[in-house]
């Protein structure tokens, strides 16, 4: 395949060779891979974007209760707090946190979301792309481009490492989602392919070793909070790279390190609910309360 890439280095090389951005190469590759036209592929991504937009907003308008009852109402609380005018993180970051935590509320209540790359990390990419897109008055086409750039990063991590918490811990889920989101935001804001790759490196390094320890095994807590920190990770990393602060370790080496760290995590800390926060006294009693 002319536009296929299996690593960050190869992606960068093809971008230079064909004078294309990351999202353009990714769109060409998908058309090649699927046999669909580029327009058809874009239309499919438009469906994903629309689901994302709706999932970032729903929890601010409706009262949502999660299946396990551990989360719900966070997006509304954050919005009220922002409207009181004393946001510690600033308006833009607060909006991103609302979108990330709200999407996790929708997910935990059996609502419609886009796994990106997983359901447990589904708040990060939409929160970053939609919040920044709205802030700067960008249109749907720009946001769709950002999702293709993000997919390129996700495809490389999935291919060369993992995005499954059961295999690599939370660093593989919310770390990968942040890496994808950061690359998408960098391209959407006019950054270069190098900057996007470096932003993805920043994200993975910032949460290297983060364990997967869901209370009662549910995709609720601490998952929702890690989606909030995940979107912050993505926006901070994008900000650094757009300001010209690049990473010291190349993206591919960072992905490799993340995979090795994930594999060396004990089984208790990889989505079994047997370690970390899940194994605390309160975590265990919540499990008994929910499942009897």
């Amino acid at each position, binding site marked *: *395949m002319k536009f*296929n890439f*299996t690593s960050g280095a190869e992606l960068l090389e093809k971008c230079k060779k064909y004078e294309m951005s990351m999202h353009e190469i*990714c769109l060409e590759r*998908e058309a090649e*891979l*699927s046999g669909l036209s580029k327009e058809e*592929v874009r239309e*499919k*991504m438009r*469906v*994903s974007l629309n*689901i994302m937009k709706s999932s970032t907003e729903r929890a601010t308008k409706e009262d949502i209760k*999660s*299946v*396990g009852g551990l989360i719900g109402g966070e997006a509304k609380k954050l919005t009220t707090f922002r409207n009181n005018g004393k946001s510690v993180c600033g308006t833009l970051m607060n909006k991103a946190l609302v979108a990330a935590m709200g999407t996790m509320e*929708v*997910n*935990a*209540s*059996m*609502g*419609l*979301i*886009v*796994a*990106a*790359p*997983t*359901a*447990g990390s*589904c708040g990060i*990419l939409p929160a970053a792309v939609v919040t920044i897109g709205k802030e700067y008055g960008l249109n749907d086409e720009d946001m769709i481009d950002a*999702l*293709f750039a*993000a*997919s*390129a990063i*996700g*495809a490389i991590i*999935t*291919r*060369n490492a993992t*995005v*499954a918490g*059961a295999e690599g811990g939370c660093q593989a889920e919310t770390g990968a989602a942040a890496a*994808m989101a950061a690359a998408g935001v960098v391209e959407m804001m006019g950054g270069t392919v190098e900057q996007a790759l470096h932003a993805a490196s920043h994200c993975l390094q910032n949460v290297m070793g983060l364990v997967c320890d869901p209370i*009662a*095994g*549910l*995709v*609720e807590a601490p998952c929702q909070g890690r989606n909030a920190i995940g979107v912050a990770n993505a926006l901070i990393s994008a900000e650094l790279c757009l300001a010209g602060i690049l990473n010291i370790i190349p993206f591919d080496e960072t992905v490799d390190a993340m995979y090795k760290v994930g594999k060396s995590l004990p089984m208790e800390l990889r989505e079994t609910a047997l370690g970390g926060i899940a194994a605390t006294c309160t975590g265990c009693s919540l499990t008994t309360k*929910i*499942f009897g």
Partner: protein
Amino acid sequence: MAKDYSVFDIVGPNMIGPSSSHTAGAARLGKAASKIAGQPVKEVKFLLHGSFAETYKGHGTDKALVGGILGFQPDDARIRNSFDIATESGIKFEFIKTDLGENEHPNSVKMEMTLADGSKSTVRGASIGGGNIKLTEIDGLGLDFNGSRPAVILEIKDIPGAVSFVTGLLAHNNKNIATMSTNSPVGSDYTFVTIETDEKLEADILDQLKKFEVVAKAVVLDKF
């Protein structure tokens, strides 16, 4: 082997939460079972194994399985209310925690269905991560089908040349066979055949296959 992932494997699937393996995968398993049944399901027992047995309520695995039996896709909002919809349609369902054996994938389910004409059908499968699934048994016969390609699964008379009717028909329809496996249980008059193709299989291929006298049962499955 490392796979070249589609962007929609990465940004996707579009799904009803909360878990790609326990919700989206479960819906796909239920849907595959109802498709294999080939007629309306009247009653279904879900035998849940491993992590499915331990955490099915909190993940909505139960609602997703019933939704799948009703033919819902993983992104169908009706999954939330699948119990009521099934009950209104007169479909009985039951969940039983079970142990399918230590070698079974931790996210496995065996679905024992009673169909509209009173016959029984059993489908067993596993949710293997990210919403992807594999089928491991159909009506007592073991298989390993992961839905990476379109497939036709058949029960045909165990007589010389029976398979050639099927392969000939696929060739006639310009369908290239990617993999083929046959399984003929001792003492049975029938052979179980799984054929994966490179091309999508249209519905009329199923009608053509059913016209052959040697074909007792046929199911055409699209990629999962």
